[in-house]
């Protein structure tokens, strides 16, 4: 949770001539391709890693899958053949890669259904929750970070830095429990006013009321997720802005007669945003981790909960499938962030 921040190092580049525009475009493409190559490599590593890690499981995988239920030898054999465990390791690996590439993630033993289907059902709520959470966290974090960084040392700055450090140190699940206790269950005379289970009421109304219903269900999980995640963005934005503010061009902008907020809006913030936005994407993995906890606590029917269930059963095919998906998604997001950063920042664009 507390990886120290690394600012992007601007690459010095020497270029000449108007033709650079085009070559810069080609540069981005080349960069994107090389990044995509890197991402593919990472994904390949994930595949290999997953295959072997899950082969490290102690005992007989089929019996692991059976979780102690009595199975007839016929069933065991069937299962074994179905899983291709009768083949040599290398063939298994080839099959595994092939299946994965064909998006066949196997069948969940617990749910008796293709893992991909299960994931498909759960991905929507997760995207809704993490998406909303991320949007709120990012905008809040960036807004507050901007204010704090701009007036460094002000009361607002000390307050928000303090709060974010506090939130940073809070274990997500604990915060979730507390929020649930206070706002969901209700404590003492305070009645619990917010729903704290699932994504919608059982007798969910239709139309706009339905949206409100879902929204009300989202309040607590979102709050938990945001509280923990946004602190990071605040700190990143703040330090990034502080870095920018000390740059000479900000003084130049002031000297040009720009108003304080113009200096901030036009110069400091856009520049500070560049590394921040990248970091936002880079920390996607962290958000995913938060989602697992939050979804578990609030019974949010998302991927995180699915993963948690898989861990707890344990349902290894499901675990493997969700793990693969989450990891690949995070890798893809990271790569995108890299490329987007490259498009946005002219300093590295032509490099």
């Amino acid at each position, binding site marked *: 949770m507390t990886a120290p921040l690394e600012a992007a190092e601007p690459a010095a580049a020497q270029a000449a001539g108007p033709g650079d525009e085009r070559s810069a475009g080609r540069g981005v493409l080349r960069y994107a391709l090389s990044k995509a190559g890197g991402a593919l490599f990472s994904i390949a590593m994930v595949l290999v890693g997953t295959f072997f890690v899950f082969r490290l499981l102690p005992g007989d995988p089929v019996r692991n899958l059976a979780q102690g239920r009595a199975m007839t030898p016929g069933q065991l054999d069937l299962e074994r053949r179905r899983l291709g465990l009768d083949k040599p390791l290398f063939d298994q690996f080839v099959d595994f890669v092939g299946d994965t590439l064909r998006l066949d993630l196997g069948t969940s033993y617990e749910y008796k259904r293709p893992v991909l289907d299960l994931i498909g059902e759960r991905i929507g709520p997760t995207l809704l929750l993490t998406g909303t959470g991320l949007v709120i966290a990012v905008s809040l974090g960036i807004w507050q970070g901007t204010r704090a960084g701009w007036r460094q040392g002000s009361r607002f700055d000390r307050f928000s830095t303090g709060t974010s450090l506090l939130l940073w140190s809070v274990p997500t699940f604990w915060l979730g429990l507390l929020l649930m206790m206070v706002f969901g269950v209700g404590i003492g005379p305070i009645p619990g006013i917010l729903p704290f289970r699932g994504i919608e009421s059982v007798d969910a109304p239709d139309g706009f009321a339905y949206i409100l219903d879902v929204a009300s269900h989202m309040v607590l999980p979102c709050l938990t997720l945001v509280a923990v995640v946004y602190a990071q963005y605040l700190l990143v934005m703040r330090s990034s802005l502080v870095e920018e503010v000390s740059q*000479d*061009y900000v003084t130049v902008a002031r000297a040009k*007669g720009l108003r304080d907020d113009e200096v901030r809006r036009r110069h400091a913030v856009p520049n500070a945003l560049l590394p921040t936005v990248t970091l936002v994407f880079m920390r996607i993995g962290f958000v995913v981790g938060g989602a697992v906890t939050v979804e578990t606590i609030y019974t949010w029917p998302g991927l995180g909960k699915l993963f948690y269930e898989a861990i707890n059963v344990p349902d290894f095919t499901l675990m493997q499938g969700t793990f693969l998906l989450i990891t690949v998604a995070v890798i893809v997001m990271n790569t995108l962030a890299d490329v987007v950063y490259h498009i946005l920042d002219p300093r590295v664009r032509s490099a």
Partner: protein
Amino acid sequence: MSLLELDDVSVTYRIAAGEVPAVRGVSLTLDSGAALGVAGESGSGKSTLAMALLRLLPRDARVGGRILLDGEDLLTMKWGRLRAVRWAEASIVFQGAQHGLNPVRRIGDQVAEPLLVHGQAKPDAARKRVHELLEQVGLPTWRARSYPHELSGGQRQRVMIAMALACSPRLIIADEPTTALDVMVQAQVLTLIKELVAEQNISLIMISHDLSVLADVCDQLAVMYAGRVVEHGPSGDVFHEARHPYSRALAAAFPTVGDPASRMAPKGLGGDPPDPMNLPGGCSFHPRCPVALDECATLDVDLWPAGERRSAACVHVRAKEEAS
């Protein structure tokens, strides 16, 4: 009437460790169309003074005295008025040109920005003006679409100058515009500044620690030491026959190639530069002064007339003037 008048300007930084008197009672005047050079070693308060002129100092700096631009005191001016003065009447070229440009915005936009901010042009006209300015500083117009990192150091410095010229100010403050530039490029930039000042009747304050460069560009020279002006006068006089021992040492540090006197005889000033937080008593130069007298340790000498339109802060000067 003089364009700029500094009256007993002082700047003190308040930092955790105490107070740093960076500028201590500087009084100078600048006529319109004139060029003033400010020299002095590192930490003598040159940049601080320059920044104080446009009230650009960080909040922990306290400025005292008066800075009159056209008779208006910049230090007590309303913010709105100050913003209008900034750049439109007095612009500034900063020490490191590399960092004075926003790295992620195009050159053209940055040069045009003051024009738009001060409402001197509509976007279209501004673009034309930008092209004009770039040509004026010897850059091809297509450079307007470049980003700062695509330019060499000299080119960036020229962009800064173009930017400073954008609103046709009457005063340009150039803080070490050529340090960190290559000799050849330095020559180009200096030539450019010289030309502009001569042609456009712009007043110039140029800051450098290279006395020879200043002597070349400016009519007047002020030498600063430990936050004070220790010598002031026409540039040729100050450079060639300095009255203050510090100015003398500074001038001697730049040998004239071909002058046998300086061959195999580098000259310099012994001792360490003063610590602004812990200035020596008396004349702050006395610990390093080759001609210091006993009284220098206790006597704080002010600027003293030292010939025609000249002044210097040294007991020797005072003694001489008093004698004559």
